């Protein structure tokens, strides 16, 4: 398991565990960050924070510090 924030642009992984507490955790869960969901790292912002992700067919951004709380199972890169 690796934190989502260590994934690079163009990499993908599957959510293994949602860390953090309280509102943050619940909010992420409601936005679809559920164990087993595949996440694609679309890009980092020009200042390297936040990150743009694609999951469940929509684009969402998270701050790097928050993304560090999402543990991922990294997937092998496929040719897109």
């Amino acid at each position, binding site marked *: 398991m690796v934190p989502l924030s260590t994934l690079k642009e163009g990499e993908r992984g599957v959510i293994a565990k*949602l860390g953090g507490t*309280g*509102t*943050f*955790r*619940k*909010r*992420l*869960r*409601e*936005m*679809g960050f*559920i*164990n087993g969901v595949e996440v694609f790292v*679309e*890009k*980092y*912002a*020009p*200042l*390297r*924070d*936040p990150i*743009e992700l694609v999951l*469940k*067919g*929509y*684009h*969402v*951004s*998270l*701050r790097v510090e*928050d993304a560090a709380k999402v543990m991922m199972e990294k997937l092998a890169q496929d040719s897109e």
Partner: protein
Amino acid sequence: MKKETITLALTGNPNSGKTTIFNNLTGTRQHVGNWPGVTVEKKEGTVLYNGYRLRVVDLPGTYSLTAYSIEEIVARRFLVDAKPEVVVDIVDASNLERNLYLATQLIELGVKLILVLNMADVANARGHQINADVLGKLLGVPVVFTVGTRNEGTKALLDKVVEVAEDRDTVSRHIHISYGHEMEKEIKNIQDVIWQDPSIGQRFSTRWLAVKLLENDTAVKERVHEFGEIGGKILDQAEASRTRLNEFYQDDPEMVLTDQRYGFIGGALKEVLKISSQSKFDLSRQVDLVLTNRILGFPVFVFFIWAMFQLTFTVGAYPMDWIDAGVGWFGALVSGLLPPGLLRDLLVNGIIAGVGSVIIFLPNILLLFFCISLFEDTGYMARAAFIMDRVMHVIGLHGKSFIPMLMGFGCNAPAIMATRTLESERDRLLSILINPLISCSARLPVYILLAGTFFGASAGNVIFSIYALGIALAIGVGKLFRVTLFRGEIAPFVMELPPYRVPTLKSLLIHMWDRSQIFLRKMGGVILVGSIVVWFLGAFPRNVELSVGQGADKVGVTGGQVVPVTVDGSHEPLPSTPLALGDNREQAMEQARLEKSFLGKLGHAIQPVFDPLGFDWRTSVAVLTGFVAKEIVVSTLGVLHATGADANEESEALRRSLRASGMTPLGAYALMAFVLIYIPCLATVAVIRRETNSWKWTGFSVGYSLVLAWGVSCLIYQGGLFLGIGI
């Protein structure tokens, strides 16, 4: 046919096209206000349809109906307490899975629901085929397709609303989302306790209450607490159930419930959604690769902001000139029609000049909100926040706060209105409070006058340092407020980046008009009263005994020369001043009269307060009149230094007079700092009142800025004296 009123609430995720549907339904017959007690915008409109009167209430766009954000609380409170006859959930058909999450919560709430699959065209283009019949049956909710941007499906939706309101719809039935054996057992346990008091079940869905209690929802717990003795029993049961579930699942029940809801949605979508051809080319994604590119992202962003600035303040200057001329012409017309005297003076110098000072902002407001609507409707606003978040996060603000901050350099009034785009109440309040520290264009004439008079060649650097001081204070005060007033967990930054869309002109125009209407209606009142008060203070008492200069007779001055109100940060006072202060004698008389007026007396009275800052009584009066608008400081100094009210910041006579008055470069700098920090103008105060929806915050904003202004100026002046700089 009898006219029956049906209340209909619109809900949906942000970016689901809800606003467009609302506009399609209500057209221009809508009213924008605030939900009671909060800064969240409330939109309402009415539709007359087939003899029915539909009251459409647009609820804030939310992803869920928990109690985490003020928007969700507001939306939920309306659904639970106002009990609208029909609830319409607008769903982005091309993003079904996440959008249906809100629908599961609405189903649970037990409201009469209609599901609107909006942007059906986009979904089709992406190769998504949705079987609406099966979806409707699975959810027990009638489904309607719409394409909001082309106004398709509006009639079908209205027909369905009437059908559902009259219980004629055949699809509607109440379903339970099954949460699994253990969870259901505990839901039942809580419901059993609730049923001991049958009256609760009449007001709320007991299942919904039980689920919310298992989610540990604070707002619902408070409500249950108010039930009295039975409430205590319910809460005890809920707590016991939560503990048991926590042990069983090794996770919070609310997390499990969320998983189950998504599980239910996933199951439904397997039967309903067919994705035929996964189109490889995604235009929105390609556009975004350029607009938020690591190298191009910032230049593009700066360009867009620059263009917005140019459009708002440079292009806007032309209509402002016309309005200025129009107000001047009207003032002159009224002057010509009425005999000289108090009434004419009040009308021309008080009311027309005062109201003129508000209307002149209208072009700015219209253009600014046109640009902001364009950013929002295209989806670029989210990208701007994406790019700027790292920077704004330093002050503990959201990336989106950047735009209001930047607009503040033009004019704080529309900038504060632009904070409406911020979702978190806390961010919005903080942005509103620090926005006046960003130096608006109306303050520039004051800096030009003072810096030009006292700093000669280095005037440019001095003015720049004042702007920098403003930014530094905004950052400092922002941080200070963040750790004192707005403590607590910063809302997580989980921001959707919606696909780019082509906006419709109709929604852009409606959005623009909404804002402008608010501005005209609400600001007009406060400004009008404020201008009359300042006029009164400057014009009274009448007929004071004056002995000015070389043998002036005892003259009863009749034309109260009031500080003309200039507005746009430009240099000319309104040409509505009826008194032509041609010769020096009249000017001297005017100066003496103003010194004897209430305003002058007030200036003398408060001067001791400003003594540590090095202000004389004239400066004190100028600072007082500057409450109406900052550029008035210049014209007031003009009057008081007997160079005439049409003095501007380039006037050589005023500069000489200022230097002769004993003001030092240090004193001038302290005054500039004071002008920078204390409340920018009456219009801004009115906007703050309007946007915070609270006199308390308005008072706080005025109060803290005055204290800060005094403190910083005092520090500069006394520090300078001590160090012997600039005296």
